[in-house]
């Protein structure tokens, strides 16, 4: 009899294999955070240690420093095809959060992501020596694996495992495909793409339970390094606050989450700008 964590793993693995079979141009977004790192581990579960598609990271240039080093280290150790995109133009023009958090997210995340996925902006890919060089393939990705969880906030609770986006990247919340049992939307019209959500049924606690069970090396920013603080959710340095916590292991984090009544993304400043901030960002393509 499988426990709930094993059932979650089984479902995620099943979704990964369906995605890999149906999408020729498939990629996975890796934000370096705990969720997408768990998802990366699940990909290795699904494909017996391999990750047979590229990982895409959108570098806003404001990420907490150690995130980039950690990304490249794991990419090397796990033999990943690491692809990076960035809004170089907006950065050159001085874009930052003081201009407006939602404006900044829109430019450095949403716009950069959209352009990177459709291949209209340069993608750089990690070389064997660890440096990055322009990627020759500029074909749009038609399947994009994303680590959204239904329990994160309201709009994500309405997602499908396989969720179509139209030519303008729009998510039509009111007209989503039906998902019967384990049959997903794997047919799509030219010009559209599908987002795939293997972690949809996972909760924040499930993520930590799995990190504990599998001993997954998530970035140490999630643990207290001796200052009595840690990050609960990772993003750009200027807009991500840490929390008071002395947790240094997944187990201690789980115990802490059991008693907290503070929302996971409370440290993410952009969410507080507008009551429907997240849904608006997501409609525009934010993940």
């Amino acid at each position, binding site marked *: *009899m*499988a*426990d*709930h*964590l*094993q*059932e979650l*793993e*089984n479902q995620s693995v*099943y979704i990964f*294999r*369906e995605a890999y*079979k149906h999408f020729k141009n498939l990629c996975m977004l890796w934000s370096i955070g705990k969720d997408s790192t768990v998802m990366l*581990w699940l990909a*290795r*579960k*699904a*494909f*017996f*240690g*391999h990750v*047979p598609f590229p990982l895409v990271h959108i570098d806003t240039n404001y990420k907490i420093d150690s995130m980039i080093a950690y990304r490249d280290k794991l990419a090397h150790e796990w*033999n990943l095809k690491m692809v990076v995109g960035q809004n170089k133009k907006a950065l050159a023009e001085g874009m930052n959060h003081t201009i407006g958090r939602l404006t900044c997210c829109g430019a450095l995340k949403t716009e950069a992501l959209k352009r990177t996925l459709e291949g209209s902006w340069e993608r750089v890919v990690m070389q064997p020596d660890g440096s990055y060089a322009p990627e020759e393939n500029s074909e749009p990705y038609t399947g994009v694996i994303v680590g959204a969880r*239904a*329990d994160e*906030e*309201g*709009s994500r*609770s*309405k997602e*499908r495992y396989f969720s179509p986006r139209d030519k303008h990247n729009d998510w039509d*919340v*009111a007209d*989503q*495909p*039906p*998902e*019967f*049992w*384990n*049959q997903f*939307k794997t*047919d*799509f*019209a030219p010009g559209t793409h599908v987002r795939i959500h293997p972690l949809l*049924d996972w*909760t924040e606690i499930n993520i930590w*339970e799995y990190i*504990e*069970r*599998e001993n997954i090396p998530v970035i140490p920013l999630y643990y207290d390094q001796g200052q009595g603080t840690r990050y609960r959710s990772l993003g750009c340095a200027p807009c991500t606050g840490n929390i008071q916590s002395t947790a240094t292991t997944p*187990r201690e984090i*789980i115990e802490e989450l059991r008693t*907290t*009544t*503070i*929302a996971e993304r409370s440290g993410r400043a952009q969410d507080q700008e507008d*009551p*429907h901030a997240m*849904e608006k960002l997501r409609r525009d393509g934010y993940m």
Partner: protein
Amino acid sequence: MSAQLAADLAREQMNIVIVGHVDHGKSTLVGRLLADSNSLPDGKLEHVQAICKRQGKVFEYAFLLDALEAEQDQGITIDSARCFFKTDQRDIIIIDAPGHIEFLKNMISGAARAEAAFLLIDAHEGVQENSRRHGYMLGMLGIKQINVVVNKMDLVDGDQATFARIEAEYRAFLKEIGMTPERFIPISARDGDNVAIRSKTMEWYDGPTVLEAVDLFTKAPPQEDLPFRLPVQDVYKFNARGDDRRIVAGRIESGSLKVGDEVLFSPSNKTSTVKSIEGFNIAPTDSAAAPNATGVTLTEQIYVGRGEVMTKVDVPPKVSTRFRANIVWLARQPMTMNTWYKLKLGTQELPCRIHELTKVLDASELSSDSETTEVGRHDVAEMVLETKSPVAFDLVADFEATSRFVLVDAYEIAGGGIILDSVEDNLGGLRADMRDREFAWVTGDVSNQDRSARFGHSPALVLLTGGTGVGKAAVARVLEKKLFDAGLNTYLLDGKNMALGVDHDIAEQAAAQADEILRRFAEVAHLFMDAGTVVVSTSNTFALADHGRIRTLVSPFPVVHVHVGDDPVDADLTLTGVDGDVDTAVEAIRSELESRGFVSG
């Protein structure tokens, strides 16, 4: 694994869906359940109350769920929202499904994930259209534990007689579709009566509250004790970092498997033996069981791929091109006769169409219309479906995963269904013979994979049809030459050569020996394909009706039927107006082969 983690994981988790007619109070009930069981994070209630205040409207518990703007504006749930709470006994995922008919497909998406259901009926309005339709859908989706919640009892002053009348009416309806609800619960979600707290105004009710009922649901028994089923998702050989394992991957839907077991793949009838159980970051093991996703390597390298159902040899699935099914149709465009839809059953994907439409009914009324020749949006129907080639399946009474399917029309999932029965298609006997042939087939040390790897393509039979004088013979000749020049192993199997050689003894009694001529043709093609060749042939001798037999005889190798001419024929590829332009026709066939993955560009 730490002791604490083991203890945490021992806790049960359950998905429960809340369904019912629009405005009968589903979201309010879920909001109440969350609030009264202290499951909301700090600030969530205040956050939603602040939004209400800003927008100048009175707070309702439903807003906790309907977190999207569009829903608050209309005051109805559009999509299935999920939320999480826990009882002393287990962790619960509550799925709030929309009640508006327009969003039936969203209700289905939510309910298809559930193990148990609360079905709400408004005490004041009574049983409505979607009360019945949703009840029907729950049955079809396979949800057996149903509690009916009669809400808004405050509007009828907690009247026991009203409650009893609704219970009698709805019980009778469910009985008609073969379902038995576990209980009926009178509540007022708005006031919280009998949700988490026992009602003081309805003391006549002595059953459980909704929260208590949540803990009375039971988990389905493990599928591990049923016969073994694994729909193959894919066969992997990554070759990276020195990994040369060839792994058949899929999820074990029922039963268990161990190293040394003899396994059967259907519908291709290939057999092999399990050599190892594979996994990443797991302890070495020589067995695997439902419901785990797994991978196996085999001792004999056989030609199998996605879509096959792996079973033990002694309990095979059914294989036919026809089956009887119940379906629900969701697309705006009706489902019509003579239209091909994509069937997705387990991991198989292939064209199917209605062979016989038995009855169409309005699920809200159970009224049936036997005259109709199409299935409209939100209708349910019983029909015999016919697939282009044999499909492996089980009956819904025996297995769930291999008896459930969806139908795809123009990129969209347009309907879903369950298989009630296998239907004889006149090829059953032949398929049984072919199964025997495959079981006994002798292979040398060179496998089909070895041949494909060397030749750079997999085998196939390209069968050209068309009236006389359309130029199909010329197309066949040029096709063979083009494929050959492109480096493929290919052979033009000409009917005349069959008559001169293999059929020499019976060639003069062609009419009387038609079946034997067809059998010999297909067996020769089968040998060529077993040797890795792309066989090109024209088939004037065979009627289109014989193609089903040819496909069965050459299985597991694929047939690509190319029709030349303007007459409407159900081919894999139809080439019209070929005239003298043989090169264009050949190119079209080549790209068809390429798109099917038989040859690479």
